[in-house]
C-alpha cells in the first residue's frame, strides 16, 4: 500500500524548499551538456519561461519505490504561480532504456502548486522525471535523480 503523507507536512516541506531555493537564486539548473545535474530540485523549463521547484515525500529527494512529489511552477517574468497548466510526467531510466510501470497522476492544487502521485522508481540508478507542459503553453523540463 502507498504510504500516505499528511498534506500539511508535504506543503511545509515544500515551503521550506521553496524558500531555500529562492535564497540561493538558482536561475538555471542546466549543466554544460544542457542536462539537469543529478539531484537538483529547482530548475528552469527548456524555454526559460517557467521556474520549477520540487519537493518529494517520503524523502527529500525521490527514492526507490513509490514517491509523491509537490511541484511549484512559477512564471519567470512575473514570479507568479503558473495556474491551470496541463502537466504530464514520465519517469524514465535512460541508461536502461525503460520507464516505470506506473504513469504518475498530476493534480492541480492552484497557484502553481501541482501534486504528483504514483511516481514509481523501480530500481537503483539514474532516473529522469521527464515532464511536459502540454497546455495552454508547450514546454518541457526534466529532473534527474540518482537512486540508490
Amino acid at each position, binding site marked *: *500500500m*502507498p*504510504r500516505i503523507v499528511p498534506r500539511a507536512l508535504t506543503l511545509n516541506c515544500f515551503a521550506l524548499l521553496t524558500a531555500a531555493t529562492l535564497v540561493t537564486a538558482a536561475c538555471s539548473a542546466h549543466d554544460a*551538456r544542457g*542536462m539537469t545535474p*543529478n539531484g537538483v530540485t529547482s530548475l528552469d523549463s527548456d524555454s526559460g519561461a517557467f521556474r520549477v521547484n520540487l519537493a518529494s515525500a*517520503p*524523502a527529500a529527494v525521490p*527514492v*526507490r*519505490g*513509490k*514517491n509523491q512529489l509537490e511541484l511549484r511552477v512559477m512564471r519567470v517574468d512575473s514570479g507568479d504561480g503558473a495556474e491551470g497548466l496541463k502537466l504530464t510526467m*514520465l519517469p*524514465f531510466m*535512460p*541508461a*536502461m*532504456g*525503460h*520507464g*516505470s*510501470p*506506473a*504513469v504518475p497522476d498530476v493534480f492541480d492544487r492552484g497557484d502553481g502548486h501541482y501534486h504528483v502521485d504514483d511516481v*514509481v522508481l*523501480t*530500481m*537503483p*540508478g*539514474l532516473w529522469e522525471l521527464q515532464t511536459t507542459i502540454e497546455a495552454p503553453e508547450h514546454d518541457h523540463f526534466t529532473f534527474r535523480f*540518482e537512486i*540508490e
Partner: protein
Amino acid sequence: MKRVTLTLVALLLIGTPRRALAQACCAGASAVTPGRLALHEDALVGLQVQAGTQHGSYDSEAHFHATPPGAAVWDFEQDLLASARLVRRGQATVLLPFLEAWRRAPASAAEVGYGLGDLNLSARYDFTWSREVSYLPGIAALAGITLPTGRAPESARLPLGSDATGLGTVVFTAGVALERAFDRVLVSATLLGAKRLPRNVHGARSELGSELSALGAVSYSLPNDASLALSVNGRFEGPASLDGSNVPGTARRRVRIALAGAMPLSETVRAHGSVFVDPPLDWLGKNESASAGLTMAALWTFP
C-alpha cells in the same frame, strides 16, 4: 540488460570440444560452459537454476553504493535448455528462462513477481578445435537472437517491477570464441557484441547502446574429469539514445567474477555449479546493479 547476459550464457552453453584431441579441453570447458556438447554427444537437455541478490549498484559516475537499509532484491531463475548438433562442427541451443523476484524498498512494501523470460536461440560453429591445428587455438563463431517473450518493465503490474521479466525488444548477438588447452589447463576467451532494436517507451523511441562482452576463463581438469574454472566477464555498453539522440551519462559497464565447477555423475549426466560476484569497487561498474549469487545445473546428454 539481464537478457544479454542470458544470451552470453546461452552462447557459451554450446560448443563442440573434441574428446579425442583433448579430454582436458572438454572437462575444462564444461566448467565455464555447462551445456557444451562433447564430440561424441549429439544432444543434451538441462535445467539450470540461479539465485542472486543485489548488494549494491554503480552510479552514472562509476561509484559503488551499497544497497541502502530497507531495500533488498533477490532474483531467481530457472532455465530450461536444449542443445542439438546440426552439423559436425555446428550446434544450436534454445533456452527458455522463468524468473522470480522478491523486492523491497524503503518507500514500498515487499513484493514478489514472476513470469516467463525472454526466449533465446543461439548457435555455435567451430572452425577449429583446440589442438586440432598445432599453431591455432580453437576458433568458433557465435550468433544468437533473444525474443521479447518476457514482460517489459513498463508492462509490469507491481510497483517495484518485480514481475518485469524481459527487455521488451529483440536482441541480436554475434561473437567469436577462442580456446587453447595446455595439458590439464584450458584458457578461453569470448568476445560477443549485442545490438538491441529500438522500441517505443511511452511514445519515445528508446534504444540501448551497442554492447561488447568479453569473457576470459582458465579451467583446470582433475583426473576424474571434474573441473574447476575461474572466469572474468566484462560488459561494456555505449550510451543509450532517445528519439535518435544519445543521452549523456548513460554508458554502462560491469565486471563479474565467477568460480565454477563441473562433475560427471554418470556417462550421460553431469552437474555444474558456480558462484559469482560483481565486486563492490568503484570504476568496475557504471549504471548497473551489482549482484552476487550462485548457479547450479544438471544436464542429460545423448550420444
